[in-house]
């Protein structure tokens, strides 16, 4: 504000002909700026609040239909499959038009959604990752879905375990859509040449021994590493922390420095820096396909793409165990936004229902490689046929029995994932002491956890 009224007050002292014009100009600017600035301090929405719908592009033939906006993170081929299903939805009825608006990656959808809530605009459905939706739930941005289920489309339309992940206090807030788990991938040809068994290692100890056996193996004149580690995602480490008997947290009580969690990170440090079996890779998947590494852990969602690109025979298996199993679920689901109007929410439910049943659900599962999460997909002959035909795909489904959702701190505390990424990168690339890195995480997160504690206890725990 000072910037604008200074020239005005200074001009008053001068008293020449130009002043009135300048004053008028300055006053005009002030007047124009005031409502804009006032807009920055938007009030929180009550229960009846209705926000606007993001604008977009409606084809002429759908102009008369109720419009639904779906924000999605999926790009490239997955986006094509989603759009095909939406096109099928448009043909199946004549009242609703659904526009898919794409923001690459779960993080971008989250950022965009947070900004648009500030600007008082919300899409009607949004894809959210398994951790992102929790934060919008805490801030009352999601619509409870219990009231929408009916006899034709009940809760049993979804895989029980996956639906449970999106249920808080007996109400459903987030339904599974593109869910995945990590798998262990290995290069069969390399394993055979080195003399390793034709399977995934059963335990992390065995994995490390195999890494030592692989040491010195070269292909095309370059050394092959056992594993390319991913530094920009702590999802895999969440799994191995469980496998070693540790965890991120128990409720909101942090367990980063527990014996098991430290052991898990120390294992990775020794694997990389003592044995030289692993390294921090920029793109582990590309390295695996290029034959620069012999194994990797990667999402089930990548299975189809890797099968297309790999020039060698590869196998998949369960993630290694140690003292326990450690398989995290991940991926995305769909939520309806609370601040959309009633008609928009009703229409959004129809879209959600269409995508989660019948051929659409089957096509989505088959086309993307995500886990079958709906009854339509689980019971479909096509999905069963694919699992028989491709044993790798069956492994992914079987592993589901031992998979579970991430720890509370990773889900509800936005700072947790970045702090853990810092820690694993410091250990993977710089060889930092595992325990010290995790202690840093714990101290960094303390204030962040206190910030969400009250809301968490009121809305989730009690």
């Amino acid at each position, binding site marked *: 504000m000072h*910037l604008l009224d*200074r*020239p005005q007050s*200074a*001009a008053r*002292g001068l008293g020449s002909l130009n002043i009135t014009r300048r004053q008028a100009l300055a006053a005009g600017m002030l007047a124009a700026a005031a*409502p*804009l600035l006032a*807009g*920055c301090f938007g009030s929180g929405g009550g229960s009846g609040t209705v926000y606007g719908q*993001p*604008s*977009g*592009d409606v084809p002429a033939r759908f102009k008369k239909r109720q419009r639904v*906006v779906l924000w999605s*993170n*999926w*790009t*490239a*081929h*997955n*986006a*094509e499959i989603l759009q095909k299903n939406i096109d099928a939805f448009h043909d199946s009825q004549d009242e609703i038009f659904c*526009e898919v*608006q*794409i*923001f*690459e*990656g*779960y993080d971008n959808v989250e*950022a*965009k959604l947070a*900004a648009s809530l*500030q*600007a*008082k*605009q919300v899409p009607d459905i949004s894809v959210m990752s398994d951790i992102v939706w929790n934060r919008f739930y805490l801030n009352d941005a999601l619509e409870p879905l219990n009231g929408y289920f009916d006899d034709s489309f009940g809760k049993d339309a979804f895989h029980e375990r996956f639906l449970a992940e999106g249920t808080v206090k007996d109400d459903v807030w987030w339904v599974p859509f*593109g869910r*995945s788990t990590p798998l262990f991938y290995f290069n069969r040809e390399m394993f055979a040449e080195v003399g390793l068994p034709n399977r995934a290692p059963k335990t992390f100890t065995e994995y490390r021994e195999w890494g030592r056996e692989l040491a010195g193996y070269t292909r*095309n*004149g*370059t050394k092959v590493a056992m594993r390319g580690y991913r530094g920009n995602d702590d999802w895999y480490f969440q799994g191995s922390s469980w496998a070693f008997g540790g965890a991120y947290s128990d409720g909101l009580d942090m367990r980063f420095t527990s014996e098991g969690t430290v052991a898990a990170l120390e294992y990775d440090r020794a694997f990389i820096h003592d044995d030289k079996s692993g390294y921090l890779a920029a793109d582990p*998947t*590309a*390295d695996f*396909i*290029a*034959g620069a590494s012999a194994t990797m852990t*990667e*999402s089930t*969602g*990548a*299975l*189809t*793409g*890797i099968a297309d*690109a*790999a*020039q060698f025979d590869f196998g998949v298996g369960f993630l290694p165990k140690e003292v326990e199993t450690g398989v995290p679920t991940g*991926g995305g689901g769909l939520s309806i936004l609370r601040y959309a109007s009633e008609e928009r929410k009703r229409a959004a439910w129809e879209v959600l229902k269409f995508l989660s049943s019948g051929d659409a659900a089957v096509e989505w599962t088959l086309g993307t490689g995500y886990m079958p999460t709906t009854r339509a997909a689980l019971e479909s002959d096509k999905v069963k046929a694919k699992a028989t035909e491709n044993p790798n795909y069956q492994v992914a489904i079987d592993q589901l029995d031992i998979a579970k959702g991430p720890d509370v701190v990773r889900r509800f505390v936005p700072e947790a994932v970045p702090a853990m990424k810092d820690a694993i990168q410091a250990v993977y690339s710089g060889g930092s002491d595992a325990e010290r890195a995790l202690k840093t995480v714990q101290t960094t997160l303390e204030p962040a956890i206190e910030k969400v504690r009250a809301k968490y206890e009121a809305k989730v725990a009690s």
Partner: protein
Amino acid sequence: MAAMTNVLPAEATQAPGEEAAGSPRRAARRQRRGGLSRRWWGYLLLIAAGLAFILPLYVLVTTAFKSNADIYTWPMKWLPSELTWDNLVQAWELAPFGAFITNSVVVTAVGATVKVVLAVFTAYAFAFLPFPRKNLLFLVMLGALMVPGHVTLLVNYITIGNMGLINTYAGLILPGVASAFGTFLLRQHFLSLPSEVFEAAEVDGAGHLRKLFSFALPMSIPAIATVGLIAVIDEWNSFVWPLIITNSVNMRTLPIGLMYLKANDGLTSWGVLMSGTLIVVLPMLLVFLFAQRFIVTGLTGAAAGNGR
């Protein structure tokens, strides 16, 4: 030389004539004797710096035309074993690049033009108009130069949202039209212009607009070309703002269009992504190659305050 002057001040004062005659010859001899051997490290640095810029471009171009078998291989293949158009075709089919190009051209043309016009007027005001607290305002503007654009991102978003301009060309262009850098560069340049010209013009009865269009602008072509080119490149490459201010695929600009090619779960097809990148980079590369002379003279000239 400094040491000699200290020891023999008297001689040094008499020396200039002799010095002037002697030094070019000596310098030439020095250069002949040690041309390559003295400057080899300079050439080495030049080559290293050149490679740092050329290598990524080379990888970009070759990857765009390589087959997947050539891309996903280790060690890396420098020469593709066969060239393919498949990646380019696939990129074009995956995302509506026609619409992206149209949007980028509209945003760049309008955005850069408005930016230059505003910068010219503001710079003229700062250079030639007497008004109170001019220096303070100028300081504030310099401050704006130091603020990273991302700091104002959310506020801009909310403002544009309240104006109802999300997902429109106006929303894409408006927040970027005030260019502190352009204004600064042009003001410095205007101040370096000879004041006699403007005094003469005033005597002949020229007003501000006449002084701007008939005198200041014609004498500042390189500086304005620089500001214009930087504005064009900025607008064309701009990523974060177009990302958050547009929703639907028909309003996306080229850099955002690229993300439609990058798979976020699973395997990114680098060949396709690089083909898309090539489509984005090529126009700016051409613009830069044709106009880089202007940029260099404009930047050095205007910044030094005597670029004419």
